[in-house]
């Protein structure tokens, strides 16, 4: 039935096109030849598109400026955002200027009955300019970028809190190194129902390790080093607010570090966060869903299977006192056993 309808529709359209063609042939037009009228119309369309495109761009920037790059809540995050905006500024200039020239020239030089093109095969001076200028700009971009990269990737300080992030389909588990600041050994062959991380219980460093599900606590103002592992497929530990991300790769340990600069409580009181939460809750209320309260999140950002889109963990940034109090309540993994 549907197929028959589609076939009939195609035949109908084909006949319609044929009728139009015959009609224009009768009028003595070569309907399919590109004419000066077409050059003019399409040239004007180019200009109209330029305007519309730029308006669309500005409209999006205005509408989404608060949503993009949410408040950076780590020490390096602020510097990284500055660099991001600097680069964004540069590329916006290039984007606007080149698109303007492209569509404006397309409009300005559309073919008229008496127009002629200028024979201009090359110009070494011009070509030198647009080789050298981008090269200089890129040199600046590279230098600033690599400086930032070195800050992000330098080894973590010795007194950083060490936390293992352990990924599996489809959740995260955190393990704190405990008083000795050293994670006990683990081995995937030791994994069983009660020991999901395969922690080596014979290693003395394991004695005080603390295993946490569901929610991860870290203190503000102290460097945290994450040691990241996976036991099945590749996952990626992504914390958008802290501007850090690192893959979790089975068979190897990766790491990343950062110093949180704003506590969860403080975030919830920031006007931009309040505005955003209000917006989200309005949408949720319409759908009849529970209200939302701001939380930092650890997301999985490498395709890992059916529930990839729902593999996250709350991250709570405490004041140092709150953190110590929370930590004191946690029982070491072996004690739990």
């Amino acid at each position, binding site marked *: 039935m549907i197929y028959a309808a589609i076939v009939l529709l195609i035949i109908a359209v084909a006949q319609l096109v044929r009728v139009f063609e015959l009609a224009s042939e009768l009028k003595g037009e070569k309907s*399919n030849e*590109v004419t000066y009228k*077409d050059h003019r119309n*399409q040239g004007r369309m180019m200009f109209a*598109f330029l305007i519309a495109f730029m308006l*669309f*761009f500005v409209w999006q920037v205005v509408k*989404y400026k608060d*949503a*993009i*790059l949410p408040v950076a809540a780590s020490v390096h995050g602020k510097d990284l955002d500055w*660099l*991001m905006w600097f*680069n964004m500024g540069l590329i916006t200039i*290039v*984007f606007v200027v*080149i*698109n303007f*020239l492209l*569509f404006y*020239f*397309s409009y300005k*030089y559309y*073919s008229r009955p008496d127009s*002629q*093109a200028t*024979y*201009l*095969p*090359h*110009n070494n001076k*011009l070509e030198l300019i*647009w080789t050298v200028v*981008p090269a200089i700009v*890129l040199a600046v971009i590279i230098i600033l970028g690599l400086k*930032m*990269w070195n800050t*992000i990737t330098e080894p973590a300080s010795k007194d950083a809190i060490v936390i293992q992030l352990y990924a*599996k389909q489809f959740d995260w588990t955190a393990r704190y190194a405990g008083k000795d600041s050293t994670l006990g050994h683990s081995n995937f062959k030791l994994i069983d129902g009660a020991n999901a991380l395969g922690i080596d219980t014979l290693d003395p460093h394991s004695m005080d390790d603390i295993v946490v599900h569901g929610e991860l606590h870290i203190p503000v103002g102290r460097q945290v080093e994450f040691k990241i592992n996976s*036991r*099945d*497929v590749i996952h*990626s530990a*992504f914390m958008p607010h802290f501007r850090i*991300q690192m*893959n979790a*790769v*089975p*068979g190897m340990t*990766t790491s990343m570090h950062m110093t949180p600069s704003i506590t969860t409580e403080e975030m919830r009181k920031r006007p931009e966060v309040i505005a*955003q939460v209000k917006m989200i809750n309005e*949408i*949720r209320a319409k759908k009849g869903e529970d209200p939302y309260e701001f939380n930092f999140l650890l*997301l999985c*950002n490498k*395709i*890992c*299977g059916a529930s990839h*889109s*729902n593999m996250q963990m709350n991250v709570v940034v405490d004041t140092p006192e709150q953190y110590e109090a929370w930590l004191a309540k946690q029982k070491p993994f072996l004690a739990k056993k």
Partner: protein
Amino acid sequence: MDNHGHTEHALEHAHADHHHEESFITKYIFSMDHKVIARQFLITAVFMALVGMVMSTLFRLQLGWPGQKFWLIEFLLGDKWGKDGIVDPNMYLALVTIHGTIMVFFLLTGGLSGTFSNLLIPYQVGARDMASGFLNMLSFWFFFVSSVVMLSSLFIEGGPASAGWTVYPPLSALPQAIPGSGLGMTLWLVSITLFVISALLGGLNYIITIFNLRTKGMSMTRMPLTVWAFLVTAILGVLSFPVLVSAVVLLLMDRSFGTSFYLSDIYIGGQALEQSGGSPILYQHLFWFLGHPEVYIVLLPALGIASEVISTNARKPIFGYRAMIGSILAIGFLSFIVWGHHMFITGMNPFLGSVFVFTTLLIAIPSAVKAFNYITTLWKGNIKFTPAMLFAIGLVSTFVTGGVTGIILADSALDVPVHDTYFVVGHFHIVMGLSAVLGMFAGVYHWFPKLFLRHMNKKMGYLHFWLTFICAYGVFFPMHFLGLAGVPRRYYTNSAFPMFDHLVNINVMISTFAIIGALAQFIFVFNFFYSIFRGTKSEKNPWHGNTLEWTTPMAHTHGNWPGALPVVYRWPYDYSKPGKQLDYVPQTVPLEEGEVDGGGH
């Protein structure tokens, strides 16, 4: 070029042999004629592209209106994958995987190079056919079988491959991890291996034809930029595709024969696997060693087509011909030493990351040269807005708009917060996907008279362009904002948790544009097939071009030129040259006394 006369003789001989009536099968099915093979590639690719496009519509429905029921989803995916009109999460991942695979490999590699390298290389260098018609035929049939294998994986029990188009192990290696990594993944690997064979046979043929079968006077610096682009593309493919095969074969071994090239320390499905010592990162290095040149394998032919279309329709020589060749070569070379920028956050040594930052950002320089040269070509031109010209100008726009965001992603520090988010999806769809698709459309509209001896309908062409172009930006531009807000790609839904709920409107807008854009492609499909049979007949040189293909008769004669091969006297860009009666001077017109060739380079 000693063997040139010899080859020509052989071909003349073959030509004479072909005067007897060919059967339908040798003429249209197992043909060795480059023009027929080009048409075969094109039509196969159009079909594959439609499949890929419908897939994108399905997952855009899910992303725009998560959890809502759509008749189309149930109709196309059936009760198993689209129960009650909602896409199954595993099927969602399968759709994005196969959409990517089809678009990158089957449309923009096989389809684009297969169509235009085949059609234009012999025509534009003045050869009677490809160096080896037989290998050329094999190349198409490997492509065809590979397409069939890929499509067949849609109809099996566990569903098609669903680990993303990059199929990173261990997800792609372990059926326990995702259902698509069962038979579906095996078929994917077989299909891609066949595809690479096709690409290699084609690529070697293109290179040999360009080096050996150029007609008299067609020096390397008199070749149209299309041919230069096809040449560098073919070289990139021949050097990088074999590495993909090795990656694929090792993955096949890990999956089927218990080796551990990519696997180690894995506990899944309640048991610890035996494999140890492998590294999933090794796969990524091998994959992206092809994967990045692949971006340029997709892009360069489109840029070549744009050079030709823009110059012809602006009635001006392409600005900076030698700089354009230089930038094609530079881009081709650099594309081999930048693959690590896909892997900044895999745990790769940060110093190695720094090196890749440097090499990657260097590519911006030849790319900028190309963009400025296109714009200067338009400046003070006499622009004829054929549908092809619109698409070519659209390509320059997307090349720049998508290219500049690459500067962010190439910068390892800035990559961290946007890696694997929609920022990346927006970036590569605009710079690679759109540019190459728009270039391919430009090529189809421009050379349709050479492919099918007729014109496509211009009004439908204009409508098709504007709808496509506007919707394309409408789909991919807002994705940058999603990405900067931190929304990860390949999420079945962004509303499994509330963090991104306020961004749901962007997804509604994107999906709406996507659906309109997809519908607009049916204008093209209709125009395409209608014009093959009923389009207005074309004259010999409808766009007043200079290149050799426009000197061939308007018939599909075997051997391209009925008499002797044309002789070339000048570069292909003498448009609006002062002192000439017409605003174009074909390459076969001898230089006048004292006339300088090549625009005085």
